[in-house]
């Protein structure tokens, strides 16, 4: 593209009052950018001015010196043009008001040795903006050769059926793959279901039969019973899926990566590539490699993962104090449901009527948490099952001992209606023991609301055990991905196929695979059906995004994708291994194979690559590097006491908006800091830091999301990987005889704008204490 540059400076919102706009214009002119200024650039007149230039002068690479890129992005979007926003408002004039950062006096100007920090800041941002537009290009979409719009739903339970129906209603072909011989899943074994409509006070007949009938009547849905997924290969929009009968062993069963202990020799050293490859093939004997596509595989565009759960069964002796396993009349809620489904509630031990039933909600022994994998569901199930007791026997008594009674949403009404039943007795309390007494049971509880140690006689005791997501036992999705067949880090979520994407439900760590229902967290049917709709819509969004060649999530609509300059690839595999989404596969030699439709465009590969051969059209090593180099670093040649120059590479998802908000709230921070937004800290390549320090900048900090178990990173691993790289950069700094303290990484959440001044100023102070960078001025 033949670039024609233009610089547009807005003087509104206080910019014109605080800054010397003529001097700003001069900075642009130096670089050969024609300059226009306007007092209200985002108004119709201002926009018309820009559009006129685009139309008449053919300007197509613009730097707009005005407000933050996070506002007015729609106003300043000009199709076919590269637009860079220099943030003069939030991050210059609003965060550096003239009462705290005064303009130079006449005398100071006359002395020639004084400088205006705020003016310098603004000028640098313009220079950085200009540097960027020179280096980036307009992205072109990545298009698949063939696109499948079919949706694969894994699991034929309530969630899977609901997702399939929703997707089919939206016009998409769906295939449900169900492991067992029938649709319906666990719901087939229930007597009644929790209510799903107002007034939420009574139980309802299970919806499962109705749902199965609807699925069977829907022509767009194909049901494959007694079928499992052997492997899913390829990328969204073009998944090649091999299906098989459960238990079958076939060529296209998914291969597993070598476990860590097999990747090293006896001394613990990493094996060479050829040996690893040999071991890998041996380990996956009889299975085709992930890059081999099954010629008979079915094509799908996206996957809804609704494989559900299995009831948790205590291990032997685990609940000895409740007599589980010892006493036949101590059962789990799943077992009780089956008893109730068969008819009147009877005791398993002798088939006698069970009129006094005690429901225990937690494992006790000093632990007040509920059983594992319960969420709020088991509280509500206990209410449902207590109702069975009362339905079956007019003189029946149902006791619920809980530490938490969780009735989410409207289900509070069910709780209230159960409370009103004179035969239902509930109390918070810790059940300490269940023991046999004659031919009945005695349940003993401490710390109850009744104010003392109590005991109740029972015929049957029901333990409110949880719903274990099937991902605990098995990868389930069987992805033919180099990183492995399942989801990584699932143990952070107790095995649930969930993520810390607080705002992004359904999203898994694998693009195109959307989880719904109890595989994500314990949920009721009502919640699962709602969840299914969400996942179905995500699957559709994925297919349609892939079709347009744009990212699905979280950079929805981003047309860029990582581009590899393979000639210089050293096959180090860092990109393949570090990609948080497993987007990259590699061949036997280790050359990465990008799957752009799996990619979320975070740039972690770009940050990882030691050869710096990965980049995006509008975001690459050179574009950011040039911005870094565009910062003017004054030395003692310029001023007696030159100001510091500190580079901040800030995550554009949380940190950058937090800084904007700090500006909006009138919070100030050092004017000697130059901030560059990055897609994710994971995309930060250490070369930028080296560039900054070698040109005399005094310090560099990274500001991004929290990492660790409770990470907040939009790209899961980005900030964590950055922190690892920052630790390693210490050695490089030492070799340059620079203090490691000159580089730091800080966490921030989007709402923590109030912490911004302290974080930045503290770092500036610590760098100041170290003294200026010795390379300054070279």
């Amino acid at each position, binding site marked *: 593209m033949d670039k024609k540059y233009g610089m547009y400076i807005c003087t509104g919102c206080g910019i014109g009052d605080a800054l010397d706009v003529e001097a700003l214009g001069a900075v642009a002119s130096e670089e050969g950018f024609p300059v226009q200024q306007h007092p209200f650039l985002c108004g119709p007149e201002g926009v018309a001015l820009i559009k006129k230039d685009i139309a008449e002068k053919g300007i197509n690479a613009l730097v707009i010196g005005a407000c933050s890129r996070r506002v007015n992005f729609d106003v300043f979007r000009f199709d076919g043009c590269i637009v860079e926003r220099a943030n003069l408002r939030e991050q210059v004039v609003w965060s550096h008001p003239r009462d705290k950062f005064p303009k130079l006096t006449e005398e100071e100007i006359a002395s020639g040795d004084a400088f205006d920090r705020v003016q310098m800041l603004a000028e640098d941002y313009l220079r950085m903006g200009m540097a960027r537009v020179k280096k980036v290009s307009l992205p072109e979409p990545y298009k698949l050769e063939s696109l499948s719009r079919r949706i694969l739903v894994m699991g034929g339970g309530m969630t899977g059926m609901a997702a399939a129906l929703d997707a089919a209603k939206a016009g998409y072909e769906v295939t449900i793959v169900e492991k067992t011989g029938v649709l319906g899943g666990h719901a087939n074994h229930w007597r009644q279901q929790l209510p799903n409509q107002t007034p939420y006070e009574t139980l309802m007949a299970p919806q499962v039969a109705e749902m199965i009938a609807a699925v069977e009547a829907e022509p767009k849905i194909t049901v494959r019973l007694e079928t499992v997924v052997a492997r899913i290969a390829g990328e969204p929009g073009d998944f090649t899926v091999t299906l098989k009968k459960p238990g079958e062993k076939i060529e296209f069963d998914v291969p597993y990566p070598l476990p860590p202990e097999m990747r090293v020799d006896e001394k613990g050293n990493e094996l060479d590539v050829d040996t690893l490859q040999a071991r890998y093939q041996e380990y996956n004997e009889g299975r085709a490699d992930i890059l081999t596509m099954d010629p008979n595989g079915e094509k799908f565009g996206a996957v809804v993962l609704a494989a559900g759960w299995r009831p948790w069964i205590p291990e032997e002796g685990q609940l000895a104090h409740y007599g589980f396993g010892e006493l036949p009349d101590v059962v789990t809620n799943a077992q009780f449901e089956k008893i109730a489904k068969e008819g009147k509630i009877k005791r398993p031990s002798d088939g006698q009527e069970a009129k006094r039933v005690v429901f225990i909600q937690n494992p006790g022994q000093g632990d007040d948490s509920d059983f594992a994998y319960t969420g709020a569901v088991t509280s509500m199930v206990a209410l449902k099952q207590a109702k069975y007791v009362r339905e079956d026997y007019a003189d029946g008594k149902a006791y619920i001992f809980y530490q938490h009674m969780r009735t989410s949403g409207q289900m509070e009404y069910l709780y*209230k209606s159960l*409370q009103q039943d004179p035969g239902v007795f509930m109390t918070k309390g810790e059940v300490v023991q269940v023991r046999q007494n004659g031919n009945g049971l005695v349940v003993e509880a401490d710390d109850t609301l*009744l104010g*003392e140690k109590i005991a109740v006689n029972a015929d049957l005791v029901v333990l409110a055990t949880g719903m274990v997501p099937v991902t605990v036992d098995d990868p389930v999705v069987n992805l033919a991905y180099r990183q492995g067949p399942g989801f990584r880090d699932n143990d952070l979520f107790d095995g649930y196929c969930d993520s810390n994407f607080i705002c992004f439900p359904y999203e898994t760590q694998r693009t195109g695979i959307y989880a719904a229902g109890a595989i994500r967290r314990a949920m009721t049917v009502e919640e699962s059906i709602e969840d299914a709709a969400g996942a179905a819509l995500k699957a559709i969004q994925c297919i349609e995004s892939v079709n347009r060649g744009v990212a699905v999530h979280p950079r929805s609509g981003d047309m860029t994708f990582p581009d590899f300059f393979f000639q210089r690839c050293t096959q180090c595999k860092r990109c393949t291994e570090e990609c948080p989404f497993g987007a990259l596969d590699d061949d036997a030699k280790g050359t990465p194979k990008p799957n752009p439709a799996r990619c979320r465009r975070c740039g972690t590969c770009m940050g990882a690559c030691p050869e710096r051969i990965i980049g995006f059209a509008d975001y690459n090593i050179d574009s950011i590097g040039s911005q870094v180099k565009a910062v003017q670093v004054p030395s003692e040649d310029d001023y007696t006491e030159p100001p510091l120059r500190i580079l901040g590479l800030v995550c554009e998802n949380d940190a950058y908006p937090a800084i904007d908000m700090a500006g909006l709230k009138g919070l100030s921070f050092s004017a000697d800091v130059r901030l560059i937004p990055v897609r994710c800290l994971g995309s930060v390549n250490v070369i930028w830091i080296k560039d900054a320090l070698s040109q005399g900048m005094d310090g560099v900090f990274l500001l991004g999301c929290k990492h660790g178990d409770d990470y907040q990173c939009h790209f899961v691993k980005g900030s964590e990987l950055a922190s690892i790289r920052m630790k390693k950069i210490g050695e490089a700094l030492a070799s340059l005889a620079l203090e490691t303290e000159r580089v730091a990484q800080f966490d921030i959440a989007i709402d923590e704008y109030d912490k911004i001044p302290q974080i930045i100023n503290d770092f500036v102070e610590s760098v100041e204490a170290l003294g200026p960078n010795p390379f300054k001025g070279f």
Partner: protein
Amino acid sequence: MAERYLVEPDVEFINEVTRHGGGDLKKCFQCATCSVACPISPDNRPFPRKEMIAASWGLKNKLLADGDIWLCHNCGDCSTLCPRGAKPGDVLAALRIMAIRAYAKPKILADWVNDKSKLPILLAIPAILFIVIGLITGLLDFTPEGDEIVHAKFFSTWLVDIMMIPTSFFAVGVFAVGLKNFIGDMHAQCLADGRTTKTDVNIKEVAQAFSRVVLTILKHEKFNECSENRDRATAHMMVLFGFIGLFIVTGIFFVVLYVFQIHGPYSQLNPVKWLANIAGVSLVIGSVLMIKQRLNKKDQVSTYSDWFLIGLALMLGVTGLLTEMTRLGGMAGTSYFLYFVHLMFVWALFCYVPFSKLAHLAYRTAALTYTEWSQRK
């Protein structure tokens, strides 16, 4: 706290609480707002939170012997602030009626007194008794002589006292048995719960506790701590002092009659008569105020037991005053009839008091005294 308590919920008890106006008790979710809101609940083991769960678990024996239900003065602060509308105030009121019924023997009378359909029978009993005994003994003269209206000529004082004195002994007896059992149960319960450690009964201590309690009752100190229903204190005080006044008057005239042999009617200038009139008016105004307050109070349940008591108090006062007024007005026939009706109500009061809500005067006083004496923990 030592023993593990085997809970055997009594579902019928829960239904009974419901019938006595505590129908919302199961709505309680044990937040204890009630115990915090209550101005008179003690800091240790405060009521009514624990009574609410005990009631919803049907723990009959615990609740009937629970002295704390009597510490409540039913001001309604808890019910107003209850986030679930469980109305702890009404539940405690129901429990008190049930406690009275449980301890008052014979049981059938307790059932009848608290059963609306049995009201005609209850009122017919004194009427028939009077007429029958009057006719048998000849102490009932349907054509009293003389210009002056003298009620004693119609109803012989003997006839009245033949009826009233044994009846009042009966009432005292019923109370004595009931209170003995109640106090015994309450004490056992308090010892079991650790609410008290006192085992030795020192009469002096009890007497001191009693005198403190009586003073508190007379001053209505507890009532005045309520915020929601404070105006009830005035009405209650008028009724209470009305009864006390009339009791004193009755006592004085009893002595005057039997010791000094002076028959009524007595002069309106007599100071005792003043007291009688003031007490009668106080009783009527107090009861009317109570009725008005109960009718206006939509968020508080008023049961038959409540109306029985207020109605009785009102009718006593009204018939008494009307009898006097018609006598002074020379309306002989009307006055005699009203006197008859009045006597029926007086008898009903004596006979039914241990079974009705009015028995709270004995149970509450006993519970308050016990609590004061036992140094409730």
